[in-house]
């Protein structure tokens, strides 16, 4: 049963973290290089962080990066740990972790649906939630919903109003 600080010391010792932050009680976020992420997750998984809640993705369009966040939780430490890494937005490619957690296959497929990030090693990248989507992935910041909706659906004409 590690406390937050003990966990931070452990991580600082064993992984070379880009940054570590205690967001709030039972909530820590660390940042790793792209190459070290999978080994970091493997390390964490062997240190009681066995629960992968989900994989989130945030589109930082200004600094041209996608940020992938792996939310882990340890039932012993009772700490929620977000492991974060940033990948180049143009390349939008990252490595799969489906061999660590099988369920990541679908999380990655979901992220591919909405952000267009390909995960090498996860070959099943066809559409999961969307169907026949031929625009840029919708959750990207440069996808303008309003223009798309104006083009595809027309507004009801209330006797000539918008």
């Amino acid at each position: 049963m590690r406390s937050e600080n003990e966990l931070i010391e452990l991580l600082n010792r064993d992984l070379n973290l880009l940054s570590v932050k205690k967001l709030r009680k039972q909530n820590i976020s660390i940042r790793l290089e792209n190459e070290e992420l999978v080994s970091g997750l493997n390390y964490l998984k062997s240190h009681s962080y066995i629960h992968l809640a989900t994989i989130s993705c945030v589109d930082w369009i200004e600094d041209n990066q996608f940020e992938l966040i792996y939310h882990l939780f340890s039932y012993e430490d009772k700490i929620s740990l977000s492991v974060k890494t940033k990948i180049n937005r143009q390349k939008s490619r990252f490595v799969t972790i489906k061999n660590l957690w099988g369920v990541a296959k679908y999380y990655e497929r979901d992220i591919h649906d909405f952000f267009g990030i390909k995960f090498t090693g996860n070959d099943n990248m066809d559409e999961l939630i969307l169907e026949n989507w031929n625009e840029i992935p919708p959750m990207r910041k440069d996808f303008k919903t309003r223009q798309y909706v104006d083009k595809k659906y027309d507004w009801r004409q209330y006797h000539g109003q918008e």
Partner: protein
Amino acid sequence: MNNKYESNKWQEVINWVQKRSLFMLHYCTGCGAIELPPTMTSRYDMSRFGIGPAATPRQADILLITGYLSTKTLRRVIYTYEQMQDPKFVMGFGSCTINGGMYWDSYNTIKQLDKYIPVDLYIAGCMPRPEAILEGFLKLKEKIETGNADGYKKYNKEYETYKKNQEKVLGEVKRRQ
């Protein structure tokens, strides 16, 4: 009885019988479907009006569009609607079927139901209460009796415009042979 299409005494009797036993297709297309169990079961009990759930489109008379309709579901709703036998009726639940509702600016939901399939009645609500749904059914029964519930005839007549609208959103849609 100024029924626009063709009307004879025999049609009146059919309408009278039709009104008595309606089968509602059990297809919850949107979030409004959570108000259907209370309507179907003992608390509000729509079977008092002779309306019961039907499992397959071929045995159903009423298609309920309960709330929003994502494009994926729209494709299946069109298959379902086209598999249902005439006379068939469509009821739009809630704001989402009228003018987009809460998802008016969503890229994946349709904004006006009547562009894609003919709608006989809309019920206001987000989502409509069981009492409002039952009164909607009663209004539908009146429309059937007076022969005004002729959405399905309109679909056959203006099939091309419906097809065009559908294809604008969905691309190619498999049609019944």
